[in-house]
């Protein structure tokens, strides 16, 4: 008994130590990115390397906002991300509801088949998607890129939503229908409010996927009018050199709004991802 009591503080210290180690491991690159963004050019390659700048400067951020296409690209990223989130929720809620509620032959294989889209490498689907978007004359447009991003988000989000809906007792919807409502009313007044946190998580997931996606964006957008932020980051690397200060500053600009949004909505995100986990 005494041994166990003694062991407990050590176990707690051990757990905290491991957590601290993981935290440092995860955050170290972000910390380096943030501090590098405030360094003047000659300090970035200073030997020996220092974490904190000797002279703090906003020059790199000024470059990002005044001498690059990043402001427009950030706006494009927001537009594409919102389009993807909205379309994903519309399509995936419909599909997820059908898979969770309707009994039809092949429902289970179809659900698994949809998930296959998540395991296929993006490079494999790049060319077919390019041709589809091209045939719709939507190359180099934000909406065309949003279409392409749906190929990434739809498979997993359909499953997330399907599980959310399956976890809601069907009796609730039946009760609403017995009270005179249609199936649409049951969905609108019962199912949708209950799985709202899950849908927020799904929307965030879709937005995040679109926000940092590079491959499709780099191929399907050619002009600065549709270029998204991850692609605009490559502007700071030219044929002969890389402006690391501006690259880091742009990365900070790209990351910080997302971190703030995630912190604000993280309880929905965690709840949404784990919702329906006990009932498939």
């Amino acid at each position, binding site marked *: 008994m005494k041994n166990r009591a003694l062991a407990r503080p050590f176990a707690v210290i051990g757990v905290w130590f491991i957590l601290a180690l993981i935290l440092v491991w995860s955050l170290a690159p972000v910390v380096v990115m943030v501090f590098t963004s405030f360094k003047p050019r000659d300090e970035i390659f200073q030997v020996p390397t220092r974490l904190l700048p000797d002279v703090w400067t906003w020059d790199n951020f000024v470059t990002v906002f005044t001498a690059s296409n990043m402001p427009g690209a950030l706006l494009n990223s927001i537009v594409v991300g919102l389009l993807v989130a909205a379309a994903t929720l519309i399509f995936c809620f419909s599909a997820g509801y059908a898979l969770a509620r309707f009994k039809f032959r092949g429902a289970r294989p179809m659900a698994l088949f949809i998930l296959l889209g998540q395991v296929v490498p993006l490079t494999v689907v790049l060319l077919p998607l390019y041709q589809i978007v091209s045939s719709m004359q939507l190359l180099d447009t934000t909406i065309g890129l949003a279409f392409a991003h749906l190929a990434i988000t739809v498979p997993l989000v359909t499953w997330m939503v399907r599980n959310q809906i399956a976890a809601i007792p069907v009796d609730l919807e039946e009760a609403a229908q017995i009270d005179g409502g249609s199936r649409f009313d049951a969905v609108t007044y019962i199912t949708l409010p209950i799985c709202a946190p899950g849908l927020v998580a799904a929307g965030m997931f879709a937005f995040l996927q679109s926000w940092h996606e590079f491959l499709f964006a780099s*191929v399907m957008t050619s002009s600065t009018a549709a270029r998204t932020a991850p692609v605009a980051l490559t502007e700071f690397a030219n044929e002969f050199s890389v402006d690391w200060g501006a690259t880091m500053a742009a990365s900070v600009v790209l990351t910080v709004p997302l971190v703030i949004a995630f912190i604000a909505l993280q309880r929905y995100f965690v709840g949404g991802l784990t919702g329906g986990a006990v009932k498939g």
Partner: protein
Amino acid sequence: MAIKPRTGILLGVAGVAVAAIAATVVVNVVNNSGGDENVVTWWVPDWDYDAAVELVAAYEADNPDVSVEIVQTTGDTVANRTAVALDSGNVPDVITESISRVRTYADKEQLADLSGLFGADIPTDDFAPGLVDALTFDGKTYAMPYRWATNALIYNPELFAAAGIDAPPATWDEFVEDAKMLTSGDVVGTAWPMQGEPSDLTLRFLEFAVSDGADIVDGAPELSEDSTQAAVEMIGGSVLDGWASPSSFELDNTAIRELFLQGRVAMYPGGVFDVAEAQAQGAPIATAVLPGLDGAGTALGVGWAHLVPAKSAHLDAAKDFVAFLAEPESMAALTLTFPARISASEDEKFQTPERVAYAEQLAEHSVPAPNDPRWTGSVQAVHDQIQEVALGRKTAEQAASDIQQIVDQAFAE
């Protein structure tokens, strides 16, 4: 049955969203499916954009019935975008692309034959040695080169003077000897780009190997174990011996230049762009041709060219525009390094004293870098072998043998 308010709103929002998406597609299809017979689309890397705008204005002034639409690409995205566009058949009319990738596209028959553009106005012998040949396959030339560059030796004359060295090294032995003398305190003799693009390191490796008897035939390196071993020893061994910076493992071209500007790297093989940057920073800098085994070393030429996709909707107009871009004045305007045509090099911006070594290197001691896809596919593996030697895990002899196997296997497939 009456629709409840919230249900109505939900259905309405979903319906409007789907209708908006459908309408957008329809509008785009209607607006863009016609195509404009007089518009040539040109994909340009962003570093050429400003000069490109001026050139296009001049071209359009001379050709009022044609307009050129410029689309900016970036260095990191142009390869992927070009490959997908060519594979899909949905192509622009002119693409500015790296010469190293031309052969890959030509092998797939995705490029238009530009041989007809060469002649009295654009003579092939006005181009850098071997350059047009490197873009000619089965008698057809598939690209119009416009910018061309090699490395030369960049060194810090103040560090050389402080070490008691009065001239840059002319041979490998002198290079090693000087580097050892220069390595002292915070200063190292040289550094290699082992981080970043693997081709940066393998280009230097090949420069040593070619200077020692290896050859480049039809876009592919023909290595011998002796020349490979000597080249690997020169790079990997220098890190082990300490006269090349041990931080080479973390350095790319930009980082090496920055360390040179800080006076921590005394000399390195670098491009002419670095010279301009050093001059802008007021750093001490001088240049010389690369040292070789017994005299001047051979540098590998790399550069950019204009391509016309075979499926271009405006082939004739595109070729005419490329012919305009091949004029000496256009080439001079479009490059910071060196123009592909010798006559274009007469522009005064290519005549500064620091460029003399580069001009000599280009004209007399250079060959085009390999562009065979089987070699470019082996670059990462070759890079890793050189790194193994620098880490002391392999001898130069073992690495040379492994590199030979890697290359043999790639070309056997």
